[in-house]
């Protein structure tokens, strides 16, 4: 691997990311899967970095899941998106930041479509007006929330309490970065670092002291694949794709996986349990899995927050080995206590993969 080659490509895919005044839209599913992630993001941006980040409870789904499951036509998705933009316009913002990768891709795709077919945009404006009497301006900047964390990765590194280092050996942690398919595969120029060698997560890992792992199936989908998972008959295929990725990264012995998509961490995390249950195979050390974190969770750990406050107890794969390596202090007894120290109850622990 020639690092200069990658750096040259990274330098070609720079993206303008304004430093302040963002309109933030949440993901449909992330708060269920990784409850602290979006909370952590708003906290870092607003409270830690002191930036202006605006949210409104009126926003809805972007229609991306339905669109990618082939259940609604693109025009419908466009009208939904037009309403989101209208909410942003009404709030007086022009920098749009979705938390979801599929949303990000959906917005990028729709904006590009409108650029190519202005008559379609005009029709959607008309439809939106007819539907809810709203008007919108297109966002001036579109960035995914991971783009923002990438943008501020240096500041986070300066404020860091922990680094991505094995405190026992002093070696950098080996981190697999997994990018959601809809981030840059459709429009390489919309992603930091492009589509082939995306830099958005790699940049964070590097700044926070870790070492990025590049493995053969790096580009491959996490396995979710929308209808592949949602239709049960296809679910084995979804699982097989995840399996392929793990088989490919296994020889590198990664310490953790970091992702920037709602579905990816979920499937990379939960399918490890299914693979272990079906084949008996685990990919971490001593029968553990490989911990899978969102970039917000990783940022939270780096900034020194309590792992249980970050919701890491809700991961299927035990994060404790990673916490131990990073030197994060945690109370094993407090793992299943909620924010208000309410007992969340202990889950039944699987037998084929080591959990606590």
């Amino acid at each position, binding site marked *: *691997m*020639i690092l*200069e*080659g*990658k750096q*040259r*490509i990274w330098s070609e895919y720079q993206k303008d990311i304004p430093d302040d005044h963002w309109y933030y839209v949440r993901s449909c599913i992330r708060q269920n899967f990784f409850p602290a992630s979006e909370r952590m993001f708003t906290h870092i941006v607003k409270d830690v970095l002191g930036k202006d980040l605006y949210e409104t409870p009126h926003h809805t789904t972007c229609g991306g899941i339905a669109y990618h499951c082939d259940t609604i036509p693109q025009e419908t998705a466009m009208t939904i998106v037009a309403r989101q933009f209208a909410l942003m316009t009404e709030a007086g913002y022009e920098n749009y930041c979705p938390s979801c990768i599929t949303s990000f891709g959906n917005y990028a795709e729709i904006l590009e479509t409108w650029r190519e077919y202005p008559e379609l945009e005009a029709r959607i404006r008309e439809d939106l007006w007819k539907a809810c009497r709203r008007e919108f301006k297109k966002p001036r900047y579109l960035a995914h929330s991971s783009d923002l964390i990438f943008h501020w990765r240096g500041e986070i590194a300066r404020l860091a309490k922990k680094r991505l280092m094995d405190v026992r050996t002093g070696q950098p942690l080996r981190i697999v970065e997994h990018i959601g398919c809809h981030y840059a595969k459709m429009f390489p120029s919309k992603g930091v670092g*492009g*589509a*082939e*060698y995306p830099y958005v997560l790699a940049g964070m890992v590097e700044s926070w002291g870790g070492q990025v792992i*590049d*493995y*053969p*199936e*790096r*580009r491959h989908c996490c396995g979710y694949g929308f209808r592949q998972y949602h239709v049960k008959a296809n679910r084995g295929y979804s699982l097989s794709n995840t399996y392929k990725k793990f088989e490919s990264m296994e*020889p*590198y012995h990664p310490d953790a996986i970091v992702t920037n998509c709602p579905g990816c961490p979920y499937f990379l995390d939960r399918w490890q349990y299914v693979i272990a249950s079906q084949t008996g195979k685990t990919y971490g050390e001593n029968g553990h899995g490989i911990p899978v974190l969102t970039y917000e969770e990783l940022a939270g750990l780096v900034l020194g927050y309590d792992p249980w406050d970050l919701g890491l107890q809700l991961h299927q794969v035990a994060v404790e080995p990673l916490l131990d390596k990073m030197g994060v202090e945690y109370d094993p007894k407090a793992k299943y206590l909620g924010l208000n120290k309410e007992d969340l109850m202990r889950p039944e622990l699987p037998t084929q993969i080591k959990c606590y």
Partner: protein
Amino acid sequence: MHDNIVIIGGGIAGMEAAKALLALGHTPILIESAPTLGGHVGRWHKLFPDLTSARELVARLRSEIVGANIFLGTQVISMNRLADGYSLKLSNGIVINASALLISTGFKLFEADRKEEYGYGVYDRVITNADLEDWFSGADDARIPQQPQTVGFVHCVGSRDLKACNGQCSKVCCATAIKQAIEIKERFPFARVYCFYMDLRLFGKKYEDFYVNAQRDYAVQFIRGRVSEVSETIDGHLQVKAEDTLSGKPLKMQLDLLVLMAGVVRNTAVQELTSMAGLETDSDGFLRSRDNEYAVVESGQPGIFYAGACTGPKTVPETIAEARSAALSIHAYLKTL
């Protein structure tokens, strides 16, 4: 100034044209931006289909044009239209008034790193056809292993690819890939050699024989399917993926060396020159001939002629023939002045 002929570009087209013009009694002025003559062919090791030495061809041409005025390492920095010709200012300060100009500025090899998925410049063992020719000619290349067990050739890198902004066939890569595959097999008889192709376009004299030879005598395997992506494995091998379109199945394999057949694209370095001369570009991005069927060597401008790959990908014999044709056209044109 009368009858001054300036040839811009000292590859085999420019050299052959100079030679023909000398034979017709002219003394052409040959301008080459590089410090040596020979262009791309000068860098090549052997030519298909008879595996003749490219260097010898260039050396022979060089010895045959000693009578011409040759400016090496020189560019045309400005150009003005005169009543009966052109005034050219060169980077060495010389000003030439010419009655006829021959554009033989050739082509540029596609920059293989623009096909990011193939990892040229990123992975340790990915090289281009030109790199391999350099190595055949004796240059060191750390990317080529001592004893490669498996070698892959990817056809059409930057050719016939709208995503690489070049929809045209580069014409020479199929035969070049076969030639290089054979040369690799001769050096490493135990290596397995694979060619990944979209279509094999082996149109020229003896090219098909060349293809059969590669299959039968060198056991080169041809896989119909474009390589989709390349990655590096933990032990430094390359993993390539393609569809084996003839079996309709996805295919992957590990290789010790991957050679990208970088295609022929227009020479952007001479864009300024061509716009100064008022030359038009054809829809394929190369210079537009007055007529693509019977006046390929003529431009739309009086007194400006073309030879070689500046009007599109060409093989060596085609380029040589065009150069001679252009020399005759210039000779005839000068008589009309």
